[in-house]
């Protein structure tokens, strides 16, 4: 993750109209935004659509980011709203990724990858949105507890506690799956 100062400079340069800064901001925050979207929509193709649309709309309204150094938290709140809107449009029917037929044309994956992704998402089905978000941001994107706490507006202690619970549930579900076949 970029430092707050680096993010602030990138936002300022993007506001000044430098195209490369938009790419750099997108590159640096794509995975984190995906983690947040995935924690809500629970399907990788939908999460990618949500992230792309949310990032475009965030960059279009970049002037409304009042604290450029805290851009990541601001972006994630926009992604979260977009993901909830996307769920609402689908009639709140949250779907766990169809392991047999993933419609993810943008990211072609091998059969093994698809199975693994489906297995992980099915296990994450036992987590709350917040637990999934913290778990994905920490264990997939590699954010630290202070970074997660700052972006999500929670305390570091709370972030640690949420992560602990999330891992425990995930391990239990993955263990059940290993013992009894597909979760």
């Amino acid at each position, binding site marked *: 993750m970029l430092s707050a100062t680096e993010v602030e400079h990138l936002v300022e340069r993007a506001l000044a109209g430098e195209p490369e800064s938009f790419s750099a901001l997108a590159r640096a925050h*794509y995975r984190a935004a995906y983690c947040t979207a995935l924690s809500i929509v629970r399907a990788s193709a939908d999460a990618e659509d949500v992230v*792309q649309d949310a990032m*475009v709309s965030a960059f279009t309204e970049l002037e409304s980011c009042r604290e450029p150094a805290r851009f990541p938290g601001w972006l994630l709140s926009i992604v979260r709203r977009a993901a909830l809107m996307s769920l609402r449009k689908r009639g709140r029917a949250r779907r766990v990724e169809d392991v047999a037929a993933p419609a993810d044309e943008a990211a072609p994956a091998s059969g093994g*990858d698809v199975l693994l*992704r489906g*297995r*992980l998402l099915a296990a994450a089905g036992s987590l709350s949105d917040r637990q999934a978000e913290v*778990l994905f941001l920490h264990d997939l994107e590699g954010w630290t507890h202070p970074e997660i706490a700052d972006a999500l507006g929670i305390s570091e202690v709370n972030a640690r506690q949420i992560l602990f619970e999330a891992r425990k549930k995930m*391990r239990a579900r993955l263990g059940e799956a290993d013992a009894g076949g597909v979760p």
Partner: protein
Amino acid sequence: MMDRDEEKLDLSGLDPVTDPRRLEAVSTLIARRAIAARARKTSLWATLVAYARWAAALSAASAAAVLFLVMSTPTAPDLQPDDPADVVVPSWAEGDAEPTADDILQVLGDAP
């Protein structure tokens, strides 16, 4: 010994952009869409400002025309009597009290 639940889980299977070229392509696409959207927003704003200028100019011209018409139209004749005597003298006739000398002099315009 570290608790098992404190060990990082391997979630690499969920990574949407394992290939750096894909991350680059997606980032570039997002940046292009954002820049185009910002340009559209700016041009929409410029159009609105231009329309607002025309609307303001038109309003000012209309207001000036209305003002000109109002000023140039002759006003209706004043219904107030020019001479107070036209009101006061009939009131003496209608009333019972006789006018005093001062009243009469005031109506005639010779009051001290």
